């Protein structure tokens, strides 16, 4: 039943003769969640950019033909004086109002007609640069959902977001995975996320340190190889978490 949608073999990336990534090998099946972890500067974002074809690389990156890929960048630096509203931003992706409303409803905004005024006033007609970190993140996710992608690439979806916002974004991820059988590749610093949501994990430190199911490959020695020194990580699933069905 598992259908392979991405194959990566011997991926190698260098910038100005400095190796940034080497020996990267993994596969991704439809409906899976793959987490990418590693310290700062380990090449996580570079891996994404190579997968998206944004930078030159050698080796093989083979997506299944005709696949639609959505990408949520880690952040968007928006000049405060840029007069672009959320509505205008989303319309850059699709001019259809239905697409736009579907996408913002999928990320948790209320699109009920009774709440129309609130939605228009506080979200759609606001400038992108005036959004909070969490709101911007949700809008970026909504952007990536327009056009119904088969795969989503998330670059640290919770960077710079408070706990409440973080929770909603993970709930959302979970929902996308459950309801839409979406395949997701996610860069995360949060090992809880990896244990709770990922089928597979890839650990990077320029080289590929591990690849496999989180519970079997994330041993303390792997983590110390990855992050250096004595990393202590206590894995616990919150009893009140609504994602214990994993």
């Amino acid at each position, binding site marked *: 039943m598992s259908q392979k949608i991405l194959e990566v073999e011997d991926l190698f990336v260098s910038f100005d003769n400095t190796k940034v990534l080497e020996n990267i090998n993994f596969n991704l099946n439809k409906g899976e969640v793959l987490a990418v972890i590693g310290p700062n500067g380990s090449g996580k974002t570079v891996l994404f*950019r190579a997968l*998206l*074809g*944004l930078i030159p690389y050698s080796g093989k990156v083979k997506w299944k033909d005709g696949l639609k*890929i959505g*990408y949520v*960048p880690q952040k*968007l630096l*928006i000049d405060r*004086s*840029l*007069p*672009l*509203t959320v509505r*205008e*931003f989303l*319309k*850059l*992706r699709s001019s259809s109002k239905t697409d736009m409303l579907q996408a913002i409803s999928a990320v948790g905004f209320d699109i009920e007609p009774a709440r129309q005024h609130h939605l228009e006033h506080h979200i759609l*007609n606001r*400038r*992108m640069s005036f959004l909070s970190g969490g709101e911007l993140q949700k809008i970026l996710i909504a*952007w990536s959902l327009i056009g119904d992608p088969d795969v989503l690439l998330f670059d640290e979806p919770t960077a710079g977001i408070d706990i409440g916002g973080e929770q909603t974004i993970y709930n959302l991820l979970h929902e996308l995975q459950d309801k839409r059988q979406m395949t997701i590749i996610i860069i995360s610093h949060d090992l809880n996320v990896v244990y709770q949501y990922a089928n597979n994990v890839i650990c990077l430190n320029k080289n590929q340190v591990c690849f496999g199911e989180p519970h079997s490959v994330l041993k303390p020695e792997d983590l110390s190889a990855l992050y250096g020194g004595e990393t202590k990580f206590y894995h616990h699933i919150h009893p009140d978490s609504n994602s214990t069905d994993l």
Partner: protein
Amino acid sequence: MNFNSINFLQLISALFLGLASGYLGSFMVLRRMALVGDALSHVALPGVALGLIFSFNPMFGAFATLFAGIVGIWLIEQKTDLSTESLVGLFFTVALALGVLLTPEPELLEALFGDISRTSTTDTLLAVIFSLVIIFVMRKLSSGLILGTISPDLAKTAGVKPARINFLFMLLVALIVAIGIKSVGTLLMGALVVIPAIASKNISSSMAGYNWNSGIIGLLSLTAGIIIANIFGLVPGPIVVLVSAVIFFVTLAFRK
């Protein structure tokens, strides 16, 4: 006051040219190309000079040298890591040097500061047609250009081809400069694309509002500038720039 001496053709040119340069200029400012546009306008000078020497329409000469300059900049940009800005700096000074050497001295002032009072029917027709072309093409390019400005990565993953869009955009800049130098001259053409845009930024709360307000401010500046210059018997170019600057300072009071 004698409005009669204001040529009807001049006003028609001014309306269209002002609208197109303000509209296009709003995208140049968005891309942080405010000074690039200004400097690039000087690349037109050798072309204007050739037109004057060999008595063909200087607008065509201007477009030819601008086109050559833009292709040159674009090519070097693809091959090296030098920024557009630094390359424009190179082309601009070389062109200005050549232009000053080439332009016959009696015409130099006109080439530098423009003289819309000498607008012919052909000039007007060209200004109207090209202004409409600029607005139309720019509207088509706008999504890709805005997206590429916010995030080149998002743009590429959404299927935008930044190199192609940048090239077409630079062509539009060349076109607006070529038709604009007749009225405000090479030295002041930069003002006509930059000032309406930054004034509009002060008062606009959406992208569409910003683009069109900039067009309207461009239209008002050029038309009012020409009328005022005519009343007081002054050179229009500098008056147009001053009018747009006054509008800019007024918009500061209504900042959003």
